[in-house]
Structures are given as C-alpha cells and as structure tokens.
C-alpha cells in the first residue's frame, strides 16, 4: 500500500475515557462508570493505515472520537504532529480540524437528508472559508465528486436518490474536502453489500495513494482489516491486547484473544472447514464492571492465577506490543 514513513502523525498517550451512567437503582445517587478505554497508548505513523479491531463495546469507536477530539478524555491526551490537542483553545482546534476528518458507518444517518450533494460537500469548505468565490467552491465540489466516483451532474440530487454505496462516497468526498492528513474511518463498509464494499475499499486505497492520507480504520471485520491496514491494534474491553504489523498479527498472533478472533471468522472456503473448531466461550464482560487482572481472563482458556490478580502490561518485543502474562 503506502510506504509507512517514520514520522509519527498522531499519538495517543495513556488515554482514559470513562462515561458516568446512573446505576440501576431508583435513586440517581449511585453512579456507575463505564470504562470505555483504559490507558491506551499507541502511535500512528504518517501515511499508514492503522486499524483498530475488536468486538462491540471494546472502545474502538470511543478511541476514534478521542483522537480527533470529538470527545474529551477523562485523563491522558492526544498529540497531533507533536501538539497536545487537548490543550488547544477552540479557535486553534477549529484550525486543526481541517487536518482531521471522519467517515461514519451508516451512510443513511451520517449525511443530512435535507441537503443536496453540493451543500453536503461544500459545507466544510464554506465553514472554513477555503474558497473565495462561489464558482471556485462549485469547481472544487465537482472535482471531489469525480474523485470519489459520483457523476458531477448529480450535484443537485438529494441523499435519498442515491444507494448506500453512493452515499458512502458522498461522505468520503465531504471528508476529503479540506485535504485532511488524518481520516478516521469508523466502520465505513460494514453497512454495505459485498460487491459495494469492495468498491469502497478500493476507493479508499486509491485516495490514500493520491492524497498521502493517514487512516485510522475502525472495524470489527478482520478480513477487511487484513486487506486495508498496515498495522493493527487489537482491543478487548477498553484495553490494548496487541499491536503489530498486519502480516505478523494475522500469521503469528501472540495474544490468545487475537488467535481466537482470527479463528472465529467464517472463511469463504468450505475446504478449510473444521469440524471441532476451538471456540471462545462465554460473552464479553460488562465494561461497567471489568474483571480484575487481565480483562480477558474470564474467557481465556489459558488463564492462570496471575491473570486474575495482576494486570498484564504492554510488552515491547521485536517491534510488536502485546499484553499477556502467558506469552
């Protein structure tokens, strides 16, 4: 894909995000806390695709929003090009937002049904006063539409006149409008049919080459992640299990959770069918009350006493990071 450079674009430093919820009781005083992400640190290099994978509730979307400061962290901070973005004032942040954009999962919900394509794509341009004249804006919007594969003559159409795949393309054009450096792709293809999914994945790939984009790619679909990403971060219940380059993660996973996750994916080849596949038992524990020690210990078949008592730290071996006592 792209050549990962050695320059860090975004860094997550000990990010913690907790959401207060009222407990199940009748009186609102018993406050509970959802531990969405706990102490997550990683770096995203310029020009790479960094994937966050995990099951629902593992904190991957929260993390994506924290990285572009759509959410404020409970503690920790985010550095974008060496600047701590959580210290910036709102006008400084607004300036910086040009460099960070987001594409959402549901193309039916993420674009305004009352705006036509022109207004949707031009909105970031006018907000940030990029273009001097209306003609220039029009030119730019048409250029963007062509880039994402929507015919410019559809400029006055409304979202309901497009299919899901085309709407996702509009969302991508909107994200591209400000020529960002980082695009957070939050499950951009999971609502789409397979034949459309492949078109969007190819498009994202081409745009990355053309505009030297950095992607934070959030997905639960490991096959898609394997296809698109350079490096992968596997998360479980708000914690990082393992970070490594895509090849290493998929061919030689170190953390037991990563192994089970890869094994669980139904493979489109009946000849790989296994009769007695070893499956991960149980369900994902509640993030309100995460297990002590390693958060994965309640589902892990290799768990020992130490896993239940002590939280494993992220170890750094041969350029890979993982958090497990047993490896």
């Amino acid at each position, binding site marked *: 894909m792209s050549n990962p450079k050695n320059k860090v674009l975004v860094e997550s430093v000990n990010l913690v995000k907790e959401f207060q919820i009222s407990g199940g009781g009748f009186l609102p005083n018993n406050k509970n806390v959802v531990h969405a992400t706990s102490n997550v640190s990683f770096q995203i290099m310029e020009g790479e695709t960094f994937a966050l994978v995990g099951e*629902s509730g593992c904190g991957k979307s929260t993390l994506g929003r924290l990285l572009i400061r759509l959410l404020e962290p409970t503690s920790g901070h985010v550095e974008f090009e060496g600047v701590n973005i959580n210290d910036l004032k709102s006008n400084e942040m607004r300036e910086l937002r040009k460099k960070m954009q987001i594409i959402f999962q549901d193309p039916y919900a993420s674009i305004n049904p009352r705006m036509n394509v022109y207004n949707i794509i031009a909105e970031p341009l006018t907000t940030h006063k990029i273009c001097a004249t209306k003609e220039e804006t029009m030119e730019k919007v048409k250029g963007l539409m062509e880039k994402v594969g929507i015919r410019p003559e559809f400029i006055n159409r409304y979202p309901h006149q497009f299919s899901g795949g085309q709407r996702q393309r509009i969302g991508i054009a909107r994200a591209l409008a400000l020529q960002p450096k980082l695009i957070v792709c939050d499950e951009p293809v999971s609502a789409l049919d*397979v034949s459309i999914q492949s078109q969007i994945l*190819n498009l994202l790939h081409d745009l990355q080459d053309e505009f030297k984009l950095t992607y934070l790619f959030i997905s639960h679909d490991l*096959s*898609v992640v394997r296809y698109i990403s350079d490096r992968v971060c596997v998360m479980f219940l708000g914690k990082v299990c393992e970070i490594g380059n895509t090849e290493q993660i998929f061919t030689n996973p170190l953390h037991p959770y990563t192994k089970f996750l*890869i094994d669980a994916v*139904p493979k489109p080849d009946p000849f790989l069918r296994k009769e007695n596949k070893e499956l991960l038992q149980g369900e994902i524990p509640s993030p309100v009350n995460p297990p002590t020690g390693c958060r994965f210990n309640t589902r892990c078949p290799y768990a020992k006493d130490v896993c239940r008592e002590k939280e494993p730290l992220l170890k750094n071996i041969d350029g890979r990071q993982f958090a497990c006592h047993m490896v």
Partner: protein
Amino acid sequence: MEDLLNISNLKTHFFTKKGVVPAVDGVSISIPKSSIIGIVGESGCGKSMTAMSIMQLIQKPGKIVGGKIQLDNENLLSYSKDQMRNIRGNKISMIFQEPMTALNPVYTVGRQVTEAITIHHREIKKEEARQKTIDIFRAVGIPEPEKRFHSYPHQLSGGLRQRVMIGMAMVCNPELMIADEPTTALDVTIEAQILMLMKNLQKERNTSILLITHNLGVVAEVCDYVYVMYAGKIMEQADTFELFKNTCHQYTDGLMKSIPKITDEKKRLYNIKGMVPNLTKLPKGCRFCPRCEKATPRCFEEEPLLYKVKGEKDDHYVRCFLHENSEVKENE
C-alpha cells in the same frame, strides 16, 4: 435423499404504484431432510422474501402469485389461515436477524418461549411447558436457565437473545428452521458460537435448516447445498464444495472475488461493475448481463435457463448461456 420441503416455481410479486416488483420470480428450491441449505445474495435479491413466502408472512402490497410450496406432499399455499397457523412455529419455525426486535420487550423470555409450546400443544400443562423451556434454554447453551427464564430481552446480550430465539424456534421440534441472517448482528466470536450451535442442533434433532445470508463465509462454514440468488432468480445452485471449487456463474464468481479474505495477502479487490437492477425495470434477457464481463448480444435478448453443469457433483445448475446444454432443470 427424500425432500422435506419442495418449492417449485415460486413467484412473489409486489404490486406498487411504480409497477410490479417481482421480488421472487420463479424460484425452485428443495430442502432434503436433515440438511442445511443456504441462500446467498445481496440485499434486494429476494432471499428474505423467499423465506417469508414459505411462512406465508408476505404483507400487502406483496402477494404470492404462483408456484407450489410442498411440505410432506401437501401444498402449503392451498392451506387455510388456521392450518397455516398450525404449521408456523410448529413444523416450520423462523429466526430473524435482529433478536431485539423479534422478541417482545414487555414479556420475560421464559414466558415467550412457553407461549410457543402452549399455543401448539394445548394438552401440555403450564408446569411442563416451563420445564421444557428450561430444558431448551439449557440445550441452546444459556447459562443459568432457571434464572434467565425470568429475564426480559433487554437484560440479555445480543448473543443470548439469539440463543433465546433459537430456543423458541426449536422448542416444538420443527422439521424445518428458517434462519434469516441469524448472525449478521453479532460479533465474530459470538457468531462462531451460534453457527456451531445451529450445526449441532441440526445433527442432534435432524431438523433441516434453511440459512439465508449475504456472507459467503457463513455459507462455506455450515451449508451442505447453496442457492445463489440475484434479482429474484436463482443464478446458480450446487453442493457447497462444488460451488466454491467449480464456480460457473459470473455473478457467483464476482461475489467470491470481491470479498477480502482473511487468509489472503493484500491485493486489489475485484469489483462487479454497476449496481443491482431496479426490479421494476429489469433488463431484457439475462438479469445479470449489464454487469457481466462475458455477456454476448444474445444475453441481452434471451433469458437463459438453469443448465446442468457436468462437474464432480451431480446437482450443479447454472443460469448462463456459457454453460448451455440440453439438460435443463425441471420446472424451467
């Protein structure tokens, strides 16, 4: 093997203001006893409507306009409403994609499953039905079934809710269970558990399963025989192994090539060009021809039939002129 359910030339059309939508347009499917049959296709191809037609749950403006659905040599389409009610949930049951919307939020899951028993078997006493419910909860792998009996759907996770749905579908020992995208809303590790559970139940109880999915991975993992649907018609049908090894239709091939595979290196993904056609304005000739790379002028004029493919397995049929021969599937 003897067929449990035989659908022949089923047509379910929707009569809308914009014209007639032939959602299911002459589909023939046979489901042998104790087998797992898959229907794959993209959204709008008519796979769910085929399932709903079997259950006769088609709502206006939709209507079954032709064909036969035979269960034990009786045509379900000639049944009265009462007779059909006796079939649903008893002989043929169904599970849906989103268990939260399929379960009633104001009743406990135990009560909902018990209801399925008492409606079909009036002779069963309340206490016995309760015991049966707890037994089926245990069989579908719900931990602490006595406790879960009193839970409301919102208190359960997505995986557990789907287990409740499967339990409800299995509790009357149906001959056929229709599963419409049963794992699409679930996480991968839970999806694997549910697929394994369905496979095991099918083996233990000799129930047949009609599995409807868009996911070729799920098909490859569990199905014995697969039908590939496109724009209301069967495009290809074959034994699962045969279908993956000797893919004949361009659409099936395109689908297989466009999914990123977890076992594969990175390479550019294949695209099927264009989009699914509008069912009210279907192209003349083959429905797939505007998107097909190998289409000939004839494909735009004439509609192909299901031709038999001479492969390793016997019952492989494909709707494509490239495989034309004299052996055509009956009912065509």
